[in-house]
């Protein structure tokens, strides 16, 4: 179990995140839900170690993780990037496995899980026909799937994916959701930043509702429904619950 606590990030006078705290359980699919500008990407970037924060810690049990220890446990897949644009998808997948040491197995102390193979991921995300395409030439949806494959091949036990369904059509979106569930079943912990609540409801086990840089609720749909009901807005629909709590 990882616990994020006391996370605050300011950009000058603007507070992007304020005393954010929540937990990540092994093998779950946790949805980070919030409107645009709610601080989802900032939170992910800090967890992934690519953005400093004013305050904030991550605990694994009783131990506070250093930045290096955190990067051994968490991999962050950003949205809207086009890394290695002149290289092929095949090369990128091989590179990730080679560079991150995936072939050497998961880092010590990580959650136990079965590492994905390139074959599996290529098949699950329907990338076979794209393997020899350059990343820079892919469409938005194709690139999203290729990058998701990159994320799924990393050895860190927790994968943070920023907007994994963005740019995908309905069929691809369902296939990707199914793939993510398969990886969670194999022991990978997933934290997905999603602004489409229907996608989140379909894939996630639990939710963290983020709005205005603050956590407005955390739990399963039932737990959040109960929380919304306690505030006078009873509903079993995630959209209604989200609107009631944020």
């Amino acid at each position, binding site marked *: 179990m990882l616990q994020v606590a006391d996370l605050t990030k300011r950009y000058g006078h603007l507070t992007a995140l304020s005393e954010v705290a929540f937990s990540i359980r092994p093998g779950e699919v946790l949805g980070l839900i919030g409107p645009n500008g709610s601080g989802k990407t900032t939170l992910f970037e800090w967890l992934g170690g*690519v953005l400093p924060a004013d305050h904030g810690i991550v605990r694994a049990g009783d131990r506070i993780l250093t930045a*290096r220890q955190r990067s051994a446990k*968490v991999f962050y897949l950003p949205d809207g990037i086009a890394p290695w644009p002149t290289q092929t998808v095949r090369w990128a997948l091989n590179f990730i496995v080679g*560079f991150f040491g995936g*072939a050497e197995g998961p880092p010590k102390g990580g959650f136990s899980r079965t590492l994905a193979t*390139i074959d599996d991921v290529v098949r699950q995300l329907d990338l076979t026909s794209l393997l020899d395409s350059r990343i820079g030439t892919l469409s938005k949806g194709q690139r999203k799937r290729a990058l998701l494959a990159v994320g799924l091949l990393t050895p860190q036990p927790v994968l943070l994916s920023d907007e994994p369904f963005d740019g995908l059509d309905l069929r691809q979106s369902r296939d990707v959701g199914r793939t993510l569930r398969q990886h969670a079943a194999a022991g990978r912990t997933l934290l997905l930043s999603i602004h489409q609540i229907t996608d989140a409801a379909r894939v996630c086990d639990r939710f963290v509702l983020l709005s205005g840089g603050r956590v407005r609720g955390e739990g399963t749909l039932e737990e959040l429904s109960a929380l919304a009901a306690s505030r006078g807005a009873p509903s079993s629909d995630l959209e209604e619950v989200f609107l009631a709590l944020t």
Partner: protein
Amino acid sequence: MIRRWLWLVDKECRELISSRAWWVMLLAMGPLVGVSFISAVRTYAEASGLNGTAIGVGEAFSPLIGVWAPTFSACELAAAFLLPFVAIRLVGGDRQSGALKIELQSQMSAFARIAAKAVVLLGGWIVVSAAPILAIVLWKSYGGSVYPPELATVAGGHVLNAGLTIALAAATASVTEHPSTAAILTLSVTVGTWIVNFIAAVHGGLWERAAGYTPTAMVAEFQHGLVRMDVVLIALTLIVAGLGLAAIWMRLGVAVRRRASESMALGALTAAAVFLGAFVTPSWDLSENRGNSFPKADEAALAQIRSPLRIEVHLAPEDPRRVDLNQRALSKLRRVIPKVQIDYVSATSIGLFEQTSPHYGEIWYEVAGRRAVSRSTTAEAVLESIYSVTGVSPRGETEDEIFRGHPLAVPPKNAAMVFYGIWPALVSGAFFLAGLPRRSSFATHASEGGRQG
């Protein structure tokens, strides 16, 4: 970890090969070297008697000064104006594409990451250096003389200069958000070193000392076949510092304040290392004509002087006689007697208005209370004055020690075809072939298959 680093090197190689900036540099290098080489060989040939010109100075001819210094100067030009863009593209490209955010999440240190880029960039530079190597092959085919130690010194100086450029460009690309800002900053530093050289020429003193370590001055010494340990140490220190700065600022997840204080600490350490490095005195004259040294007989005589030698020069920094004195005599003297004390006395920077002063132009030599004065700035006159105050006398120079030179009255045959025709054609062909998709050279995870869980 080594294997992961090699994956990174493989990635950087691919990025370099897919970088048009590198191909442009490679393409431009042929004609750049060609212009310099053809012009140098033609001048060398004419001075050696080609087309009926007089051979009056042939015995002093050294390919180092006559051919290699101008030919390799194309490398200096490319290092100042082309290489920075290639380096910035390789370092800044990761940030622009988002690859940096992915790669930063490995357990590899930022310095190892930047070192991979530097190694690949240096490799790319060595490939580019194939153009001057072609010039050497052509020169040999003309029957020209090649003295490997001096040639290696020139080439080594340019590699070191390229290393400085790479480190500087890596640092600016890492510190700034955008490649264009990095390019402006890099060129500003380059222009800044030229300004230091200019100020040194006007004011002398500490400026002159600092100007001795600018890339231009460093390359000039290597081009004369001189290897100075202090210059090498300081250049290496600056390269490591530049790469260190790049590594510090590459860590996007570290607070800016901490990165700034680490940069200041690195700056202080570098300044201390450079200061200490400036006191290192060993140097080696690897030129065939020993152009940076007095004759061996004189060096042996000077080595016998045990008392402190003081020289007082009444010449302004910009006076051509002072430049002559430094180049022809004092720089050579410092190599034999590192602790010689040289004091410059002048009221102005150009000396034009001091000419009427009775002592202006005098050079005083003092050893153990004995003094001598001279106005000549030639090496022979300086040595004569020193011998007169020390009482030391050198043995005569033997016939073997006199450099006779290697005149060569041959026009630059085929050079234009090689550098203006074959080189661009080869580079264009290679560019086309490199554009075809390649498989992973480290495809241990089965490019058609996958890794096992």
